[in-house]
């Protein structure tokens, strides 16, 4: 890996124009050099913007039925065709991006916040509190992820918010363990001992020194986590445990249209492609972030 200095043109160096690069700007520079990460980032941005501006972009109402116009193939009027209720598939896909991005991003934020707090406490304070939190994580990780999410939604009842909550709860241990491991390493560093020696409070050390040094793996894992969360939300929607009709959620759209796979295959194919493209976007971007921000993890 070349340093920022090594890649500078000789004339700049000789003229004394040495710009100091922060680790972040160095990371962004490395990220922009990776084609796959740029494609991933563009896909992520596309889906987020689509979700944000769905009401402006959608040519039709996503839930308005038109029974005289059911299962129409893609055309100039309906770019992605219509579904079994005559609803415009293109508009539903656009609104679906809004739901998937919301669930993906907010569930990850939820599990990130809770997982980070628990990981910080466990790693920093150690002793019985670490044992307790770690054992809780072990138990949660003993369940296959989607199965635990199904169990949680079975308890709380089906619905979009409960699906989001279930996905967030299931993924808490992943972030918790990550932060705990990072904290255990940082705790022994000299600057933490120095902060202690200066009489800095435990909470201040945690939030001023330990947490900022744990950001990198969390950002990477969080980006990849959005990809998994989108897949999990679609799976719950497909099983009828997530979004409820007439919401335009991609997994639910797939489940509702599976009976028409022979007569109108596009109603099954298009939502699947949408899920896959958004997940590929977050996966590529996450992989690129890891390579750019954390070169040691390559």
């Amino acid at each position, binding site marked *: 890996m070349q340093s920022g200095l090594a890649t500078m043109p000789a004339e700049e160096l000789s003229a004394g124009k040495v710009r100091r690069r922060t680790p972040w700007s160095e990371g962004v520079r490395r990220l922009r050099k990776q084609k796959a990460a740029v494609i991933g980032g563009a896909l992520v941005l596309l889906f987020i913007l689509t979700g944000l501006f769905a009401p402006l972009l959608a040519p039709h109402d996503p839930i308005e039925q038109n029974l005289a116009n059911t299962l129409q193939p893609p055309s100039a009027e309906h770019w992605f065709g219509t579904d079994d209720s005559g609803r415009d598939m293109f508009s539903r896909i656009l609104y679906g991006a809004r739901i998937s991005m919301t669930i993906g991003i907010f569930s990850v934020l939820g599990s990130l916040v809770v997982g980070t707090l628990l990981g910080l406490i466990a790693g920093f304070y150690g002793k019985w509190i670490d044992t307790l939190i770690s054992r809780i994580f072990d138990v949660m990780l003993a369940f296959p992820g989607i*199965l635990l999410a199904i169990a949680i939604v079975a308890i709380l009842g089906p619905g979009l918010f409960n699906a989001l909550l279930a996905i967030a709860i299931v993924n808490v241990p992943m972030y918790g363990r990550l932060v705990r491991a990072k904290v255990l390493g940082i705790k022994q560093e000299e600057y933490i001992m120095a902060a202690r020696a200066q009489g800095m409070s435990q909470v201040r050390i945690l939030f001023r020194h330990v947490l900022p040094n744990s950001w990198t793996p969390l950002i990477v894992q969080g980006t990849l986590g959005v*990809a998994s969360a989108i897949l999990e939300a679609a799976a719950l929607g497909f099983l009828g445990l997530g979004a409820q009709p007439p919401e335009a959620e991609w997994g639910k759209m797939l489940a509702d249209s599976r009976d028409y796979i022979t007569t109108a295959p596009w109603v099954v194919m298009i939502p699947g492609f949408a899920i896959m493209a958004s997940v590929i976007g977050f996966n590529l971007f996450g992989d690129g972030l890891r390579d750019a921000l954390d070169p040691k993890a390559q």
Partner: protein
Amino acid sequence: MGCKPVIRYTARRIFQLIPVLFGVSIIVFAIINLIPGDPAQVILGERADAESIQKLRHELGLDLPLYQQYGNYLLNILQGDLGTSLVTGKAISEELLPHLAATAELTLFAMIFAVIVGVNVGIVSAWKRNTWIDYIPMLLALVGVSMPIFWLGLMEQWLFGLQLEWLPVLGRNDPRVTVETITHFYLIDTLLAGNYEQFWSSVRHLILPAMALGTIPMAYIARMTRSSMLEVLKHDYVRTARAKGLHEFFVVYKHGLKNAFAPVMTIIGLEVGRLLGGAVLTETIFGWPGVGQYIYNAIGYRDYAVIQSGILVLAVIFIVVNLIVDLLYSYLDPRIQYK
């Protein structure tokens, strides 16, 4: 003397599982108790009268103090009693057995498919690094890990079942024929009965769901094998093997794979969880009568006793498989000490 550390290590790992199993039992037990409102009312629906609600509460033991409820639950599952289905009234342990065999058959074949294809694709990619032989499989692996499993299943049904008409798309075997069940594994039962036509039918029914279920783990295994092999192929002993004139195939498969396999084993263990979770979706699409479909149907009927037991059994299987993987990991990589 030599095997003592292995036995001690195994015993300790099993001992460490006790608190995890204990925690799993608490979570599964809590499923019914965490239902908002009165669980008996939720199960029976809004129109149920007070008398039947009271009766169900008594049957489920919900009228007892919580610690007593949990004590009874733990005692029952330790004796192999998983309770009674609220819908069929039959013992869940009996109902679960054929479903469990169906899931085991499906996940086993999905895993065999994932390991054989994934490991070989990973090896060839690492071997032919930075060529099209590397790029194309790795691009497909990226698509594989990004694909919703249920969509892949539907697409397979559409292509191989409905368009090409190569393979059946629903069930475990020809519905017009009854398979005489002994082990509940259809491939074994049809062979034991000497019915080769049915055996072939069962194999054909297994291909699409096993491929759908195995594709995502396969993609992860391929990616892990590639990166692990790339690491190993840099080492001096690989260079020595090449220098002494060993054929490249043996260098890669004998020296490379042997040393690269330990991390791949870990991924395989973790992927079992994905397979068990994915089974719920795959079984629903392919009408495969496994535990996943059993749980899915129970959710529809609000049969919480079945939901609890199904999830408990799958979680325990996942824990046991991970224990086995962990022990194998230490066996495969002797540098790992039995501490």
